[in-house]
């Protein structure tokens, strides 16, 4: 049957992360955290997800906001896409993140959806997972017992699955400094505006030579991934248009045999588009890096 009414659930609005984590433990996996709700609630309305309880992070102080901490940018997990897209700090320090946040869904959704919700949901077509991979971000997971950090590289583990423990709350995203140019390029699904394919690139250039390159790809496979073969092809090279184009042909090579296929795009098309958008993202990133 079809419905747009969620099954009943219990609702909690904890005041602290510790309390939220405690609730997660208490429900033993039957509860879900509620951030902006823009990934979770649609699934619940269709009864594709029916958690026993929702734990609303909206009442916890200090989970929202963007600040500099030394070289790093610290972004609270409850910071909305709109706040990130409007932030001068993000635009300056992590343009790929600003671009991706500005491309998520649409105006009202960006006002409610959060970076933490997006990352913890690990939707295979979400925009931000690709960006945190490219930027080499660190994610902070907290429980009643304390916090730990998880590198973006190890965070997205499977289709809609992450390295977060069952009682952990994603509280902060830390974007390192030092990267000199980043960009995000996306082929949007015409219906949902999720990424059919999205590619984020972050590069550094010294003396005309690429010294580091990180590429994050979303939309193409079961979860967001990096593209180490393409990255390696760039490091140590002079990032000419030809070099970028050549490296981009390796974009997504690691996903061979795993490309998504649905009514919006075949695996073959996604594979080809990863290369196209890898080139677009890299070209913009190198332009910003002054390379």
């Amino acid at each position, binding site marked *: 049957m079809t419905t*747009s*009414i*969620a*099954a*009943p*659930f*219990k*609702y909690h*609005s904890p005041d602290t992360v510790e309390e939220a984590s405690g609730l997660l433990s208490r429900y033993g996996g039957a509860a879900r955290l*509620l951030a902006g*709700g*823009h990934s979770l*609630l*649609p699934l*619940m*309305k*269709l009864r594709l997800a029916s958690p026993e309880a*929702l734990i*609303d992070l*909206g009442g916890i102080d200090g989970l929202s906001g963007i600040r500099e901490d030394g070289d790093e940018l610290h972004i609270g997990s409850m910071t909305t896409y*709109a706040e990130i897209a*409007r932030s001068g700090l993000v635009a300056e320090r992590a343009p790929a993140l600003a671009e991706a946040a500005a491309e998520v*869904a*649409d*105006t*009202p*959704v960006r*006002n*409610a959806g959060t970076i933490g919700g997006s990352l913890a949901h690990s939707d295979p077509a979400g925009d931000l997972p690709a960006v945190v991979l490219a930027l080499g971000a660190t994610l902070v997971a907290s429980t009643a017992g304390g916090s730990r950090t998880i590198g973006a590289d190890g965070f997205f583990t499977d289709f809609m699955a992450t390295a977060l423990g069952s009682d952990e709350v994603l509280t902060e995203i830390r974007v390192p400094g030092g990267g000199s140019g980043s960009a995000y390029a996306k082929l949007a699904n015409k*219906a*949902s*505006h999720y990424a059919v394919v999205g590619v984020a690139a972050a590069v550094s250039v010294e003396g005309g030579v690429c010294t580091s390159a990180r590429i994050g790809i979303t939309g193409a496979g079961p979860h967001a991934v990096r593209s180490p073969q393409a990255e390696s092809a760039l490091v140590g090279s002079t990032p000419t248009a030809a070099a970028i184009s050549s490296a981009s042909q390796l974009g997504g090579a690691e996903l061979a045999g795993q490309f998504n296929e649905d009514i919006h795009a075949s695996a073959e098309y996604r594979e080809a588009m990863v290369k196209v958008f890898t080139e677009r993202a890299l070209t913009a990133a190198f332009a910003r890096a002054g390379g």
Partner: protein
Amino acid sequence: MGHEISVTVNGNSYTNVVEPRQLLSQYLRDELNLTGTHVGCDTTSCGACTVLIDGRAVKSCNVLAVQASGADVTTVEGLADGDEYHPIQKAFWNEHGLQCGFCTPGMMITAVDILSNNPQPTEAEIRTGLRGNLCRCTGYHNIVKAVQAAAAEMAG
């Protein structure tokens, strides 16, 4: 199990007990009888239900009423200042920015958000800004004109 919430809607304060699964759209329509906020889909796609929460356009079919506790909500019924239409309402009327009218409340609310961030948007910025609000009648042509007209009036 019910939860007590307190919400300010269009300047009036309300306290109600709601079921956790009640959506803000349902709360506005069913509890407060503010039926100008429409629901056109189940997937946060169409934007007909868009309202302002603390000044920002949000799709109210995707927010729990309990999440809105403590918030200041403006619906289409609260756009006008007494008998004086908001400039966006005037512009939609003058520019024929609506036909069946079903998407119109959400469309106007999103337009208000766009103009509050960007008082003089380009046509492309208006079109991109409105992509989360679907209209099947107007082809958006006159909606874009209406947002431009409202921007001009609000700029004085």
